[in-house]
């Protein structure tokens, strides 16, 4: 059954979209990740224009992060003060990102930048995860604990703030910068940025793991909501029909996935996720390097084209 997507301006099979939403939802439930970094490239692979894929995916992530955030909130897993600082950075970053996005689209390099950003981040994160899961599978349970608290140059920064729930007294500039970097990525890549923010919160800011996921979801919810709004007003690239269909499949898939996830071992899961991330990265890299069938392509005029 075909459905015409009004903003993407193309006909797509409804069941393909529901299936995609379901499959990515299943994986995100299984691995506990947002899934934006898989969904956006998949949408591009099925022919959705990259700008629409990015704008719409931001909208879909609002939905998945809201339900996640509420669940963590009930378990006291959200540090609102830390979340607010991350969010301030995120709003600045995402504003810059949307304008950068608009500029890159005008000069015809947006597809390239989206692909390059994906190749870089998916490649790095995928490799790190693969190494980590292999190492922990080899090491079994032994191994040394890392030191709880390091003193580095980071602790010399000004604007110190006390974050009670995270049991930290650190410069607000640090979470602000982390939030900002994630905001830029949310706008350009159409991701929540959890895959980048969670490691940064643990290793760079030094937050306790119990509040990391909830706080990152808090930031992601509001940054993607804001990004959706900006993409809709500046670039007109948010397709609600597409978002709704993906969402429907995604919600159901995520529930099945999280149930299946409880039956698998942690390092096996991370190893599988790493392989999948690397596969998507490989496909994007191949498309950048392989000689295209036609060196020429058509694009809307930046002086204003049809319509």
């Amino acid at each position, binding site marked *: *059954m*075909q*459905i*015409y997507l*009004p*903003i993407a*301006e*193309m*006909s797509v099979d409804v069941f393909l979209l529901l299936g995609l939403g379901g499959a990515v939802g299943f994986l995100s439930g299984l691995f506990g990740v947002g899934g934006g970094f898989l969904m956006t490239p998949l949408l591009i692979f099925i022919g959705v224009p990259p700008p629409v894929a990015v704008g719409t995916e931001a*909208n*879909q992530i*609002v*939905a*998945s992060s*809201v*339900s*996640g955030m*509420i669940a963590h909130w009930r378990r006291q897993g959200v540090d609102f003060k830390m979340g607010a600082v991350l969010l301030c950075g995120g709003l600045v970053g995402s504003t810059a990102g949307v304008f950068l996005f608009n500029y890159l689209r005008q000069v*015809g*390099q947006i597809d*390239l930048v989206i692909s*390059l950003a994906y190749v870089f981040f998916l490649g790095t994160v995928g490799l790190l995860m693969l190494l980590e899961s292999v190492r922990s599978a080899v090491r079994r349970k032994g191994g040394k604990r890392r030191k709880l608290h390091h003193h580095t140059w980071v602790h010399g920064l000004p604007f110190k703030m006390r974050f009670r729930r995270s049991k930290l007294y650190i410069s607000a500039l640090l979470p602000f910068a982390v939030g900002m970097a994630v905001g830029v990525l949310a706008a350009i890549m159409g991701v929540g940025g959890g895959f980048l923010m969670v490691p940064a919160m643990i290793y760079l800011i030094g937050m306790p793991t119990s509040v990391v996921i909830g706080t990152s979801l808090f930031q992601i*919810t509001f940054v993607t*909501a804001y990004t*959706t*709004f*900006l*993409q*809709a*007003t500046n670039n*007109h690239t*948010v397709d*609600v*029909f597409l*978002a*709704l269909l993906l*969402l429907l499949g995604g*919600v159901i898939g*995520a*529930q099945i996935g*999280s*149930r299946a996830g409880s039956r698998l071992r942690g390092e096996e899961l991370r190893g599988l996720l790493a392989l999948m991330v690397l596969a998507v990265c490989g496909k994007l890299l191949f498309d*950048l*390097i392989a*000689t*295209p069938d*036609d*060196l*020429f*392509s*058509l*694009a*809307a*005029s*930046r*002086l*204003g*084209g*049809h*319509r």
Partner: protein
Amino acid sequence: MRRAGTGWRAAMLGLTVGLAAGLGAGLRPAAAETVIADLSKRLVAITTGFAGTDVLLFGAVEGKGEVVVVVKGPVGRLAVRRKARVAGIWINRKTMEFSNVPSFYSVSASAPLDKVVPKALARRAGIGARFLNVVLARRRGRGRASCSRALDADLAGKTTATLRRIAPFCEALIRNKRRSGLYLQGARVRFLPGRKLFRTTIRFPANVPVGTYSVLVYVVRGGQIVGSQTHPLRIDKTGVEAEVFDFAHRHAAFYGLIAVAIAAFAGWGAGQIFRRN
């Protein structure tokens, strides 16, 4: 896919009677051969299940001659980009902007096109994708660099540097439009026995751009156009799709807020439903 076709016979019959009456009453224009044609619909509506559509064109021609049908979408500007390899990856390096580019273009004829429309006529009347008056946009100085000149093999050796420079971009424009099914050779125009009545099917793909199209019907005899008629055809999004598209562009801020609200509500709802798992 919706098909035109039912009822065309009845329409044709009515047309024939009307034509005969018209000719009989001496309403025939002075200079040209008369061609009368009509479309099975004047409005193509793009709705939820849109997967392309067919529009039937039927008509009658007085006198001898072959029929050529040209369907032309709204014209606008279009950028053509060329990729080049930089540090191992392919990136867009050169862009040329063209104006007066039809978003859709199809030609069909009652006999092989190159036989019916000789090159001189194609050039003069702009019939065929290679003879469209597509010009390089924003060009300073004298003269307009047009694709029809850049692609004209007869001008080889007499072309300017600009024309040589734009030629590969013009080729690419047509090639890419053909690949996406927007520039095409239409279904053949078929005469009914007696060579007075003719019909053809205009096929629009699912990705057809919206706007006001013109359907031009020519009667060609001996390499000259001896009669013609033009019909407008409107292709528009209708129903929910059109409203969503309009709303997203006209009230972008409100649309953005609604999109966020829907997503937040869906996420909250899903959390409630699956809370106890």
